[in-house]
Each structure stands twice: as structure tokens, then as C-alpha cells.
């Protein structure tokens, strides 16, 4: 057997709640800046309570994907609501960001 201890520096789970839109996308980006600028290679964004995202939010998701992927890490978005998923589908983001 194998036991792997994943340090908090490597793994991060973030829960996103409410709406990401033009009024708060800058703050959203700022709050997730620690992932964009950090070194975590295992990132999970729990979208259970993400009610809405416009293209302003998509920008930030793409920045996160680019950053995590760029350092050889993996990012996954989980429990996404149908309408939000549609925005990711239409824009092709479902093909470049892993959604479970």
C-alpha cells in the first residue's frame, strides 16, 4: 500500500457561492489570486452554489486553468448547475476545463 500525504500547499478546495458578474468579477479574480499566483497543482472548485457566471467570470476561470495547467497541475470544477454548465458548453470552456 501507499500513503500519500498531500500538503495544503499542493492541494486546494474552494467553494464558489452566488453570482459572478460584472459587479464582482474583479474581486473574484483577486480572491482566487492565491491560486493563479501560487504553486498548487491540485485545485478543486466546488460550484454547487455558483448560481451564475457571465463572460467576466469565465475570464477568471480561464486564467485559473491556464495558471494551474501551466505548472503541470490539474483543476476540476465540480457539481456545476445546469444553466452555468450551458455557459461553459456554449463557449467551448467545457472542452478545456475539466467539469465533473
Amino acid at each position: 500500500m501507499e500513503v500519500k500525504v498531500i500538503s495544503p500547499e499542493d492541494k486546494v478546495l474552494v467553494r464558489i457561492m452566488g453570482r459572478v458578474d460584472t459587479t464582482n468579477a474583479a474581486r473574484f479574480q483577486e480572491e482566487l489570486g492565491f491560486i493563479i499566483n501560487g504553486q498548487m497543482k491540485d485545485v478543486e472548485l466546488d460550484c454547487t452554489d455558483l448560481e451564475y457566471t457571465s463572460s467576466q467570470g469565465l475570464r477568471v476561470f480561464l486564467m485559473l486553468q491556464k495558471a494551474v495547467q501551466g505548472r503541470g497541475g490539474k483543476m476540476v470544477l465540480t457539481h456545476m448547475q445546469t444553466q452555468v454548465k450551458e455557459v461553459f458548453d456554449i463557449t467551448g470552456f467545457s472542452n478545456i476545463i475539466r467539469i465533473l
Partner: protein
Amino acid sequence: MKKRYDPITGKSGAIIEDVMATPEVDAMPFELNFRIRLCVEEVVENVVRYAYDSGSGYMQVETVLDKNIWRITFEDAGVPFNPLEKDDPDITLSAEERPIGGLGIFLCKQMMDRLEYRYTDGCNILIMEKKIDTQA
């Protein structure tokens, strides 16, 4: 509703909420409501960011429900710009290749039934229409 926001700076949130609060939009099913919020935000955001080079100007927003067609008309007096002429983003690119941004109007094109742009009397006019399925 018909409302003029002057100056438009800082009014994005208010414009979106005003449209969402109209009785016809408020009564729409959740799915449609979501799409309308998104498309209104994308258009307003575009105008706020790009229409007025120096300083700020106004935006007028008018919504009507014409039988089963919901129509929203945006007007601004900013630099002439037809967002419908912009190339659609290449949605087949990889994450590394995808540019950040440029998705707003594309989302509107996909989610609305009809978009129309015209430049009249020094004003950009953008019309979006969505069919409301009353059977649903």
C-alpha cells in the same frame, strides 16, 4: 421599461437589476431569466468599457414584450461600433491558446433569437430578441 442612464459609469449592476425587475422578465422561467440576465450584462459591459473613449456618456434601455417576442433595445452615443461584425471566438482552441475575453457578444448570439445593430443619428443601437414560449 424605458430608462436612460447618464452617465453610464458605475451603473452596470443597476441596469441589469432594472431589466430583471420588469414584470415580464420576472415572470419568465428560470432558464430564460438566466439567459436574459447574461445577455443584458454582456451588452451593458461592452458599452461601459468601450463606447465612450473619453469620460462617460449615456445608455438608454428599452424593453417590450410584443406578443411572444421579448425585445430589448440599447442605445448609446459612443464611438460607432458594430459588435455583430466581430469574429466569433475559436472555441476549439486549447486552454493555452484561448485568448482571455471576447466571449460576451458571442454568448448573446448563441442565446438570443435575433440581434440587430444599426448606427443612426450618431447613436449605436443594438436590439436583441428572444421568443417566449408561452406553452412552456
